[in-house]
């Protein structure tokens, strides 16, 4: 039940509890209770909107940064990742297999701001061995949503 509710909200956070109740065949009170509990348990972290900022010329600069680090004897990667995650500029952070260890998605107001973050903040963290910064040239798809899908396909009148 909870999984169904979470899936519905993940797809559209504005689905009302009344709608969810009908969709899942659960009383409204029960749905409200389950959602509240999920929020409390941090199963639901936040309700957000995916905005296509490029369309309104907002100055946003995105970068993907590959970071190679030395894991700590006890805490492994978690402790250093925890430290990096504290920075507001870091929008996503993953531990990855391959030639580097951590993958960061960073957002700044300008290239300068991102560069500062790399040289002033990231480079100074103990355990960081090296990094490669890729500036994002264009965002095509974020969280499953495509930014530019062209014109919406219109249904033709048909008899059926």
């Amino acid at each position, binding site marked *: 039940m909870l999984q169904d509710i979470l899936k*519905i909200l993940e797809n*559209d956070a504005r*689905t009302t509890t009344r*709608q969810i109740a*009908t*969709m899942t*065949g659960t009383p409204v009170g029960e749905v409200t209770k389950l959602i509240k509990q999920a929020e409390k348990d941090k199963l639901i972290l936040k309700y957000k909107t995916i905005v296509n900022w490029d369309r309104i010329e907002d100055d946003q600069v995105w970068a993907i940064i590959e970071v190679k680090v030395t894991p700590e004897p006890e805490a492994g990667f978690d402790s250093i990742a925890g430290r990096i995650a504290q920075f507001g500029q870091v929008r996503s952070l993953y531990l990855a297999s391959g030639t580097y260890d951590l993958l960061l998605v960073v957002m700044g107001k300008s290239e300068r701001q991102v560069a500062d973050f790399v040289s002033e903040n990231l480079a100074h963290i103990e355990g960081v061995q090296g990094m490669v910064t890729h500036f994002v040239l264009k965002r095509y798809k974020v969280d499953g949503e495509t930014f530019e899908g062209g014109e919406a*396909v219109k*249904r033709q*009148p*048909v*008899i*059926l």
Partner: protein
Amino acid sequence: MSARKIEQSRKQQKIISERVNRLSPSGIRKFFDLLASMEEVISLGVGEPDYATPWHISEAAVRSLEKGYTMYTSNSGMPELREETARYLEEKYGIKYEPFGEILITVGVSEAMDLALRAILNPGDEVIMPDPHYVAYDSCVILAGGEPVMVPTSQENNFEVDAGDIEARITDKARAILIGYPANPTGAVMSRDKLLAIAEVAKRHNLMVVSDEIYARLVYGVEHTCFAGLPGVRENTILLGGFSKAYAMTGWRIGYAAAPKEIITAMTKIHQYTIMSAPTMAQVAAIEALKTGEPDVLEMVEDYNRRRLIIVKGLNDIGMPCFEPKGAFYAFPSIKSTGMTSEEFSEKLLTEEKVAVVPGSAFGECGEGYVRCCYATSLADIEEALTRMKRFVKKYKK
């Protein structure tokens, strides 16, 4: 009507065959013309998925074009597609068809239906079908030289057709029973027991059964029963299936028929003279759908189900009583409280509230007093349509 118009219509009748003249002009046509001229209409009219075909399926077709697969295929369809279809039917419904001889790939179920009827009907043969039914059923029978015979169904019985009612209409001219469950326009699903009873009737009277199972995958909380899989009726059954609804592939025009060899051979004869072969790229896409499309189907069905629950509850709440449809993507609420005919209701609703539904009368006499609402549209649109319909029903309630 002016003298000139009468003259014109007479002339036309001479040019056009009697058979085609007999076909009733679709009641929905006029309606869709009106709809096309209006803006910002919320349409619960068109019965097709609101998804685009899952991209990996489309991409398989794109790749095939790049590789140059642009020629005819075998008349019966690509061997791999027939094999995959056979595998699918066996896995899903435990029914075995020989891919080379018992399966024909067609241009949607529409073509398969036409072929099936033309292959088995002699002039004047009767085909028994539920009323209401999909708009093409009776027309296809007439075009094939047959006579449609209606079996009334009603909301009280969840629009399921009763075997006894079928049997009562069997004459010595009866040749076949035509059923399509899950049903368009009602969303009705037949239980296995009720289908078994129909199977018994078919066997007892040696009738063919044409079973249109295009909506087989769109069922909610119940299992679909494949008619051909019932004991002892495989030899009497022509199973029609396709990709349009389950895989959101309406525009690809691809479907299939599965039946005993003799029938498929006869259908292939017509198919090869009239169609040659189904579109090659659509066949490639269908192979991909059968091989890897299952998760897409499940995801779409889950989503249709949520919208189904919202619209059914909504319609009942606003005074448009609606039985719970367990299949397809239609709700078929009653509009009898307004005292209007379903055509009046639909037209007024469209002009006054800009919501398009299809008058139930378009699907047969027993559809009068109902409208078809397709819920394969966004949740926001469904909610808005419900709000507008509520206002409308309240205004005209008698």
